[in-house]
Each structure stands twice: as C-alpha cells, then as structure tokens.
C-alpha cells in the first residue's frame, strides 16, 4: 500500500479553497458593482490590461484562477458522490479534465495578453 495520489489533488483543493475563501467574495462584489452600473477604476480596460501584462499580475491571476478551478473540480467530484453518482473514476476524470482545460486556457490567454 502507499499514499494515494488523491493526496495531490487534495493539496491543491485545500490551497484553492483558501484562495477562493479569501478572494472570491471581493471579486464577486466587484462584478456586482459593475452590474449595478459603476465600473471601478481598476476594471477600466487600460488598468486591467495593464495589470494582466505585468509578470506579477500574470502570476497572481494564474494561481488564483487555476487553484480555484481545481478546488471547484475536486469538490464537485465529492458533490457527485454525495448526490448518489457512484462512477467516481469517470466523474474524477471529467471534472479534472475541465479543470485542466481551464488551467491551460488561463495560461494561454495570459500569454496572449503579452
């Protein structure tokens, strides 16, 4: 017997959960603000684009988005199980695949922003 690979996803899940717990309320609030009609300065095109063009900005965005994705994916796997879907292997493949695609897209777009 050996320590299961699940420990790896679990580690990412935990890290992602922490990121999501701390940052996402603020992000949701920002989009809420946009929806209410006021676009905060930071979300103006130039500022946002500027931020995403810096290395530090890229690194932050990459980690926040991808960790949160893996957090969501892992939890979703459990949710499927908890709602009675017992094809864990397939579920796991599916949710992690989506997370992986999201991670790649994030990296790709961040690159593309230049």
């Amino acid at each position, binding site marked *: 017997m*050996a*320590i299961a690979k*699940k420990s790896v996803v679990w580690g990412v899940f935990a890290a992602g959960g922490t990121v999501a717990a701390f940052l996402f309320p603020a992000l949701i609030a920002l989009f809420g603000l946009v929806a209410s009609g006021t676009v905060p300065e930071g979300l103006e095109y130039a500022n946002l684009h500027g931020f995403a063009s810096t290395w530090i900005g890229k690194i932050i965005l990459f980690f926040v988005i991808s960790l949160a994705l893996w957090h969501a994916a892992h939890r979703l796997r459990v949710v499927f199980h*908890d709602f009675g879907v017992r094809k864990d292997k397939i579920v796991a493949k599916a949710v992690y695949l989506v997370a992986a695609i999201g991670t790649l897209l994030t990296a790709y777009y961040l690159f593309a922003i230049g």
Partner: protein
Amino acid sequence: MSKRTLDIEVLRYDPEQDTEPHFMSYQVPCEEDWAILDALNYIKEELDTTLAFRWSCHMMVCGSCGMMVNGEPVLTCKTFVRDLPKDVRIEPLENFPIERDLVVVLDDVMEKLQMAKPYIIRKDPPPENEEFNQPRSALYKFKQYTMCVNCMCCYSACPQYALDSSFIGPAVLALAHRYNIDSRDQGKSERLDILADHDGVWNCSFVGACSEVCPKNVDPAAALQQMKIDGAKAYWLQKLPGGKS
C-alpha cells in the same frame, strides 16, 4: 424528588421473530436526575425484561451505551431526562447493522481498529529502566485524541461512512493520528502508508458531524484534516530523491 413520566419509544428487533424492526412504547416514571440509561434500566427491570441494550460503567467512560436518542447519537448515561421533551425515541446507533433491539454489530470498526496500528512503533529501543522524557507541551499535542471511548457515535453521524462503509472512519483515523503525533512514536510513515490510501483519510469530506456528536470532545474531524496534510506532505517526501517510494 419529583418524578416526570416520559413516553419512550424504543426500536425493537428480534432477529428470530421479526423481519424488520418496529417501535414499542413504554411509559416510564423517571426521577428528575435520571439519565436515559436509568430509564432503560427501569424498563428492563420493571416493564419488559426482554429489552436488550449494552451498558456498563454509567459514568461516561466505558463507551458501551451509545444509542440514537431523538435522532442524535449519544451516550445514554450522559443524556439526561431533564434535557429532553416528554416524547423520547430511542434507536440503535445508525450506520451499523442491528443485532437485536438496541444492540448493533460493531465488527467492522473493531477490525478497522487493528489497521490503524494504534500502538507505539519504535525504530530505536526505548530508554532503559526509565520513562521517555515528554514535556507537557508534547503531551498536550495529542492528549485530546486519547480521550476516545470507542462509543462509535461518530460513525453513526458520519454520512461518508453511511454511504460507503469501506471508509475507515473518524475514531479509528483519529486514534492513528494520536499515535502519529505522540513524541514517543516512530511509526507515522508506516501508518500513513495504510491510512492515506484509498478508503483511508481521503474518503472524509470534512462533514464535521463526527466532532459535533462526540461526547468526549475528541474532535476526530480535526485529526482527520491534520492527517490529510501529513499525508500530502509524506507523498511528496516519498517522491523526493532519497525518500522511499
């Protein structure tokens, strides 16, 4: 002392007669300061000697009197009549097969207990003719996890165990963690190899119900999360050059 009569519904099951369990009602004149266990003993002595249930110490340490009282897994010697409504429903611990009446089959957890290797594992011999030195700070790290009375209430509360009984479960994993973090022990990696595998600690989704119902404040949920962290760390350590694979 004043009495209070409770209407107690007890789930009964006689495997030799019944195809499934059914409730039976008893009116029990309780003393004010009784625990539910006293009411059960009253039933057994005065009303119906055929009722089967386990108990021994009547002082919250032997762990044998765990049952569902009004839907919650509790020690019946620690659950007082004064804190209950007039209608009380007593059932055997959930998530275990019913052997008879309020007695459940515990084989599964008893077997799992063995898997946790709940004993000190040493690579070096212990000090000769004297005790290990263990500062209180080291003792208090794991002390809480030594308080488990094996009442199995946490197993009754844990939905992951309910959904899939191959999960090793809260009390056993907490006990393994207790030894893992005991300064005298050197068997952590041996235990993690078994317990951080499938069916082990990863099947816990941190519902936390185990800790909410634990009558001894063991907080198995905490132990399990810490064990996950230890497991994840150990995984990478094994991957490192020089680590065992």
